């Protein structure tokens, strides 16, 4: 899933491997890297102490949430202050369909991401009528309204005490095995995001995100394309939220609150804008610090703040930029 396939050794590209075909090579899925990351994760799930297994599961769930957000920030040109609502709605979708509508549990779990996508369709339709910072403010407004409803409509949403007990936490599995479920779902989802970004649709989304005027003159209607981005992002965040709600066996209004919205933004910025890996890198660093440093050091957010400051000042392209530079150095700068 990295940006480049790894050529065997620098300079070993055979002449037959035409310069031109390498242009689209970077659109391929890097199966070797995918398999390696999965293997490391499985190893971690079954060998680490329980506390760190929980942290690892959170890292995976937030890697998906931040990757979905990254579709907006890095590719679709959508700035948002209200994306956590789609994360939270995933968890609420599960809880409400099961607890209030009496749906069977498997069906309720599948409903989570669909509920998020439907809300993204409705809110997206409103938001794409505006652009830039005005659109961002409207995403915040949509999220705040939904949060307020979740917080106050006690009979339906459980209010501030949320809903719990509708599913057994971690589906009754051991943390390690629930981690495997999360790993599989997250991996498939991120691979799907990769495919979308590198498909004709993804190219369209990137075109509109980078230069609305040029894209318009080429025939792309901005509103339609950004609305599609809303639904994809909503659905993917909904998957993450569903996994998170089932992980804890509960749901609270905070799952769609400003706190998670900011967490997502920090992860993507930390990971590095305009890079596919931003969400993954960001989630690993942010959630690791959140879960581990907070046990030793009360002011762990101070650590995050200092790191974010350092990234913004010294590597605006984030962790992805640092990784890219290391790769280039290892390759001896032989490739483009």
């Amino acid at each position, binding site marked *: 899933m990295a940006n480049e396939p790894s050529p065997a050794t620098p300079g070993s590209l055979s002449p037959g491997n035409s310069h031109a075909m390498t242009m689209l090579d970077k659109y391929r899925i890097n199966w070797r890297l995918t398999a390696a990351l999965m293997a490391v994760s499985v190893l971690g799930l079954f060998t680490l102490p329980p506390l760190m297994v929980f942290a690892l599961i959170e890292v995976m769930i937030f890697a998906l949430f931040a990757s979905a957000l990254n579709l907006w920030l890095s590719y679709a040109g959508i700035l948002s202050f209200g994306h956590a609502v789609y994360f939270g709605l995933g968890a609420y979708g599960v809880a409400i369909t099961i607890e209030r509508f009496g749906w069977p549990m498997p069906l309720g779990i599948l409903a989570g991401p669909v509920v998020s996508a439907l809300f993204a369709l409705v809110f997206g339709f409103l938001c794409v009528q505006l652009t830039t910072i005005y659109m961002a403010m409207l995403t915040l407004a949509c999220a705040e309204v939904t949060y307020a409803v979740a917080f106050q409509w006690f009979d339906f949403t459980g209010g501030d005490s949320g809903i719990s007990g509708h599913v057994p936490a971690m589906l009754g599995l051991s943390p390690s095995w629930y981690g495997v479920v999360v790993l599989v779902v997250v991996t498939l989802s991120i691979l799907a995001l990769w495919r979308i970004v590198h498909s004709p649709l993804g190219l369209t989304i990137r075109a509109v995100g980078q230069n609305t005027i040029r*894209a318009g*003159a080429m025939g792309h209607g901005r509103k339609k394309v950004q609305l599609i981005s809303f639904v994809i992002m909503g659905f993917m965040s909904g998957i993450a939220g569903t996994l998170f709600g089932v992980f804890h066996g509960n749901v609270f209004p905070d799952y769609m609150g400003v706190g998670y919205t900011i967490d997502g933004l920090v992860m993507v910025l930390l990971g590095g804008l305009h890079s596919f890996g931003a969400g993954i890198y960001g989630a690993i660093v942010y959630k690791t610090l959140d879960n581990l440093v907070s046990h030793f050091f009360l002011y762990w957010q101070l650590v995050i703040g200092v790191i974010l400051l350092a990234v913004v000042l010294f590597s605006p392209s984030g962790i992805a930029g640092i990784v890219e530079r290391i790769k280039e150095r290892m390759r001896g700068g032989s490739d483009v």
Partner: protein
Amino acid sequence: MPETPAAPPGETVLTVSGLRKSFGRFMALSGVDLKVRAGEVRAIIGPNGAGKTTLINVLGGQLAGDAGRVVFAGKNLMNKYPHQVSAMGVGRTFQISSTFRRMTVYENMLSAHNAASGRWFSLSTALLRKMHGAVMEDLESIHLAELAGRVVDDISHGDRKRLEFGMVLASRPRLLLLDEPTAGMGLQERHDLIDLMLREIRERKITLLFVEHDIDIVFRAADYITVMANGKVFAEGLPGEISDNQEVQEIYLGVK
């Protein structure tokens, strides 16, 4: 080369009548009347503030006109969205070249083909691979194949102008609107670019409407010249007629 043959030369394809556009109290276009024939290379010249760029922007759908009519190939072109204008076979470039700066040269051209394919919503990567041949061919024809892997932010101003032009051609337009195609380039570079553009345009029988400040370029390229002043068409004629016109010389060429 184009799938739809251009209208026979001499037939009017673009008619603008009584076109008005104001910004607050400033009237940028105060009733423009213009007829352009199929296959023609038409230059629009005029002093700063004459309304040339505004005209292009209203035709391209980037700005909405206040009043008037625009008809292209028998269809209404007035106050359409840019993507609708594009769908009608009208392509354009901008005064400051407009490309995807964080994509590679290759991806820019790929985007243009993707947009023109009509299957921009597809999830099939195979579709992109099928475009590869045509993308490289188009990059060759604008001499950018060597730079295919470079990020557009890192290439020169002139290369970006050429890329933008090539991307517009990829959508196989019947009418092309170019706003100062050679602005900000060196002398030799200008001539090379305009020659390249003319070659491609004539080969594909595209009708061209272009705004240009460089008089050299205008007389080198144009079949017919429209002079604008104060938001109106001031004079029209063959290059020879325009260069001999006393009034045009006074308002524009600065000859007393």
